[in-house]
């Protein structure tokens, strides 16, 4: 029934549809440019080399954290444990460093716990078929608890930020090295998403998991991989944050929760409308970082920024629904 209606509508309004598609595809980039222009007009310091480096550095950390999340949501599932996995990776690294091991071991273990958490998510969701929201709320809670327990409820100081710290704070002109690395990651992911069958399978999973299975694709293994990948990405970001902040912060997760989901979902509203994709996520992450930096300079309070982000997310969803070609939700939730 839906098919009949949608083809009919497409045939009737093909012309206006094309304009709508362009607005739907690129409004986020336009918003980003407008926002940069407005903030740069109000506060020219926004475009200082050091400030650009700060914006790009925080964007890079954020982008690495939610790379896996982008694909999880693109596959029609949800992961609300990513920020707590990052916190766990962060605290594991800090805890190991504090108890005397080297950076290599600590960082590896930090990433490994992320992989384990992702494996737990993936097993429960892909193999046992339990609703992803419930599973990831629960695993997120467990990760947060372990992270807090490692530091007995407070943060752990790291004496030496090591090689990673040097890497994080090395800039090439206004561009931090870590941003280049993150950009490379995204380039590879973009290739995998757009040019390999892998990417098609991800978006196919969101459409019809059963059909993907019937087509002979190991849908469960793919889903399992996506969750493990998301766990690893979050944990890498957590390890980097440990080096960046020179400490392990058990509560670091909560500040990334809204931002991470907002970035992925806003990103899902450009290019491939209603489908989270890596280029969209990159744009949205930059948008949020510029918003944070710019609004801090203009003197907005934290809560005002929170309201703006919420409104941005709502408007974004509404715009995508208005101009997009599909009216069904990007996330099936349960």
């Amino acid at each position: 029934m839906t098919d009949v209606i949608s083809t009919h509508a497409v045939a009737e309004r093909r012309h206006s549809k094309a304009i709508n598609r362009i607005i739907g595809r690129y409004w986020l980039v336009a918003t980003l440019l407008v926002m940069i222009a407005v903030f740069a007009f109000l506060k020219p310091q926004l475009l200082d080399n050091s400030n650009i480096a700060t914006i790009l550095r925080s964007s890079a950390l954020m982008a690495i954290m939610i790379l896996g999340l982008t694909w999880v949501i693109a596959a029609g599932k949800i992961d609300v444990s990513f920020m707590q996995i990052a916190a766990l990776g962060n605290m594991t690294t800090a805890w190991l460093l504090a108890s005397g091991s080297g950076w290599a071991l600590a960082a590896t273990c930090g990433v490994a716990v992320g992989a384990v958490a992702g494996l737990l998510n993936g097993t429960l969701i892909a193999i046992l078929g339990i609703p992803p929201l419930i599973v990831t709320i629960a695993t997120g809670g467990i990760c947060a608890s372990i992270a807090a327990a490692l530091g007995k409820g407070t943060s752990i100081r790291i004496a030496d930020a090591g090689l990673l710290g040097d890497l994080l704070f090395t800039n090439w002109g206004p561009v931090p090295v870590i941003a280049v690395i993150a950009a490379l990651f995204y380039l590879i992911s973009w290739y995998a998403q757009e040019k390999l069958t892998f990417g098609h399978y991800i978006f196919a999973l969101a459409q019809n998991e059963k059909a993907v299975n019937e087509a002979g694709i190991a849908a469960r293994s793919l889903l399992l991989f996506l969750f493990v990948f998301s766990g690893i990405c979050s944990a890498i970001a957590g390890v980097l944050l440990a080096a960046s902040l020179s400490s392990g912060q058990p509560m670091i997760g909560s500040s990334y929760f809204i931002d991470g989901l907002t970035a992925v979902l806003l990103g899902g509203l450009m290019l491939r409308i209603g489908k989270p994709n890596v280029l969209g996520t990159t744009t949205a992450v930059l948008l949020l970082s510029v918003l944070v930096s710019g609004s801090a300079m203009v003197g907005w309070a934290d809560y005002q920024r929170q309201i703006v982000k919420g409104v941005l997310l709502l408007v974004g969803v509404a715009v995508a629904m208005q101009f997009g070609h599909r009216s069904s939700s990007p996330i099936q939730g349960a």
Partner: protein
Amino acid sequence: MPKHGIVPAGTVRFLAFAALVFIIGAAFTAVEPRFLSTQNISAVTRHMAANGLAALGLTLVVIVRKFDLSFAGTACFSAMTIGFMIAGGHDLWLCIMAGVLAAAIVGAFNGIAISYFGLPDIVTTIATGSIAGGLAFLYSQGRTIFRNFVTSGILDLNDARLFGYSASFFFLIALYAVAWVFMHRTRYGASFHATGENPVSAYFSGVPTRTYTMMAFIICAITSVFAVVLILAESGTADTNKGATLLMPAYAGVFLGAALLGGTSVLATLAGTLLITMLLDGFSLLGVPYYYSDGVVSAILLTGVVLFDARVRQLFSDLASFIQPVTSASEKRS
């Protein structure tokens, strides 16, 4: 999926639940005899009231097969609204009505956006939750409100006793009784279930499914206000994060109850809330650090969902075919 009405399965599940309550109670009493003291039981009933009220509204949202991640933010907003009204010297009932109204507006916004405009539920509620959480700061720029709390009479809500137990517990039981009759013995309740099970056939059977979905979100917002009023009454101050702690226990209560009793229902939520509250209260009595409690609740939620989910699949093979598309499809073909 005829989950209701199969008497033997229901009885077994109820007995299993009763045994679980008994075992948990016995285990806590063995470690800490104070668990059975009147003081602690009174505390359990009081905490259960807050958790249970928030979970009740969420139950309705889950029954119409949606998720609401905004009610914690909404509760923060209405807590500050109530605090602001109390500080302004208004009558208590007027203050609570203002809080209910504030939450109902957010709930109605959620409901209209999701049911009438077809926006995805998780994204929309994350956004509105973020906005409501930000709006909570508006009244006092984030400062704690405590003026007039002692004279307003809100503290009496916490201290009121009936038969030695806090009045809020009896309010909880009364509200659950009303909700049970409404949800499981009237055609309106049946319409809620029909909307969740199959919105298309419900719609063509004359159920205004959109209205029911919207009502579920409004009721969810309102019950979270009742919960936060109890929290305000207990603490005697209004903070911007007063409702944030409601999210985890409410989800755990709804889904643990659903796992234990084989389906989301008002009684299942009550059962789940009882278990969760016993555990949380028992651990805090034992002096377990606060940061473990979330992890324990999450772990129990996860185990409960996994264990009982396996049994659900054995008992209802048609549900199994729903969850495991590959095996069922091949079986049907051969």
